[in-house]
């Protein structure tokens, strides 16, 4: 009888598929694309991942190549050679400026606990009203404001010193290789202004990215039935 009960118990256990896995605390999000976009606050490692991704991306290379090609076509500065070598110098200088910009912004932003994302994620009890404007011009305004007025980890907003540092570093680093004729503070400041303009342009683009995609999507609605 005991044998029967024993095997019946085993059979019943097998029918139920055994025990459930023991509940555990979920893993901690690291550098995956979803968590980096949606976490209310990022830790140091995640900020490092954002910085790493800014250094080696197709966008960083194609941007440097595009603006390098424009400068090559305009032949500025004239002291630099034309041709493949000249293009290499033009592209290289822009890529180096981009890396310097990202690195300076990463370091200063990390020290000051700034959120490096162009649009920080929603956080309960820590809403940022300058993310909620409607209408074209208010949205342009809020996207420009986001460049200079940033979100911090303590839920307070403050001037975006990281981006200022990034822009200045980008402008001044070119003094390491510019021809003597233009190797001065005035040129460096112009470069910094250009870098700051890049931040503004990117912020406006990200603000309207969804609308642009929607517009483009409507233009590409095809495959209608033939009459």
């Amino acid at each position: 009888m005991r044998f029967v009960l024993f095997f019946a118990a085993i059979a019943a256990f097998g029918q139920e598929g055994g025990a459930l896995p023991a509940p555990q605390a979920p893993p901690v999000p690291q550098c995956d694309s979803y968590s980096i976009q949606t976490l209310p606050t990022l830790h140091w490692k995640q900020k490092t991942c954002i910085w790493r991704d800014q250094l080696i991306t197709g966008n960083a290379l194609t941007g440097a190549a595009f603006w390098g090609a424009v400068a090559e076509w305009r032949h500025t500065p004239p002291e630099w050679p034309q041709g493949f070598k000249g293009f290499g110098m033009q592209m290289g200088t822009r890529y180096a400026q981009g890396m310097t910009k990202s690195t300076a912004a990463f370091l200063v932003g990390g020290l000051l606990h700034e959120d490096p994302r162009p649009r920080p994620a929603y956080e309960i009890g820590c809403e940022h009203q300058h993310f909620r404007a409607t209408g074209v011009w208010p949205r342009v305004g809020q996207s420009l404001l986001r460049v200079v007025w940033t979100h911090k980890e303590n839920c307070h907003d403050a001037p975006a010193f990281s981006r200022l540092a990034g822009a200045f570093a980008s402008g001044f680093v070119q003094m390491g290789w510019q021809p003597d004729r233009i190797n001065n503070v005035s040129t460096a400041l112009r470069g910094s202004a250009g870098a700051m303009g890049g931040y503004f342009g990117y912020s406006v683009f990200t603000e309207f990215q969804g609308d642009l995609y929607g517009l483009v999507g409507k233009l590409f609605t095809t495959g209608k039935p033939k009459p």
Partner: protein
Amino acid sequence: MKKLVLIGVLGLAGCIKPVNYHPGKSVFAYDFKADNYFVNGRVYEAYVEFDEQGKLFPNAGQVDQATNLIRALKGPTDRKLNVVFFVHGWKNNASEASGNVWGFRRMLDSIACQVNDPEAPTLGIYIGWPGAAANAGGFFTFWNRQAVGQTVGSGELSDVLKRLLKEVKGEGYAGKSTAIVVGHSFGGLVLERAIIKLLNEQLDQLQAGGSIEPPADLTVLLNEAGPAAQAKPLLERLTKDKITLEDAAGNQYPLLVSMTSTGDAATKIAFAGSNYFSRPKAETFPRDLFGQTTNTPYYLLTAANMVALQSHDIVITKSSTRKPVVTIGHVDGNDWAVVEKDERLNRTPYWIMQLPQTFVPDHSSIFRGEVITLLNSYLIRQGQSTVKPACEVLAARKASATAAVAAPPPGVAFSTRATSAPSKLVLRKPR
């Protein structure tokens, strides 16, 4: 020095080998604590992973582990489970570094919180395949991953889905548990191939004048990156045989839903552009069921981006005079509903439509409260009433929410929160 830099750059932008990310234990139970990110639910996760040839990784036993978990969750009382299958897309896999793993995990946490019933556990089954091939410069892997997706979709996945769905729904798919199967992007391509094979098997058993249960309660393709040619044979079969999915009162429901965001530039432009040179030779034929005279649109466009195949629209109810066939509810300040498209050629239970950006703003942002609301609305049967979720954190979020990048799910309940029993749906084939 130059060589070192080059090696460093190549190393960072290096290839990702297709590996099994859960070679030992592949089922987990997570208790999420209410904080300012997760809500408060217990979630069960199971991982089932395939290699580039569409085969299960050998000796991993992942399907057995998932099966045992389903049995254990059902228990001797045959509990009702809420099971969500998810097939991830391009540039993702089943590793913890994959954004889709985390998005799916957080979505399950929200669903579990909404269900809020220990007697109706929430289980997520993550279908992994080598969708990521490079750490950087991923765009250039499009053609390669598309081909792998096609192979995986035609491989063992269909049999695995069949086995797991039977475990969840019972031998004749007639059980009380809820099973939703979702595929995103290339995951939609993978899933569509596998599920069509499974559906065809089921339809082969359907006699004229008879009825049969569908294998899943709902199959959803979100921003699918697969050619419309893949959907066409099933659409033709469903049209010719006049097959419907309906309840006892004759109300119509979707067997499959393909929805693509109006803001999804990836499938609207990049997909067509990328496949332009690799499409099969153009063929012409007499006007087909969907008003086409050439095969080109079927290969360049996805089903949801091809106007001729679209069957429904998602509209704001106050600005539409059409009768809602699915009431979605209040989202982002408006009441939404699914309505039939005027003069539609696709009258099958394979519903195909564009998705407003309110629900999914672009190609990738699919793990959102608005999507949970949408999926839930397809599960609620006509005449069935629901109650609001009793999840305190959600309620608090809703009260304080003014912005929502990761929006909390609005107050529509998941299927088990319905106050009345759902009407059984069956596939019908008229005599």
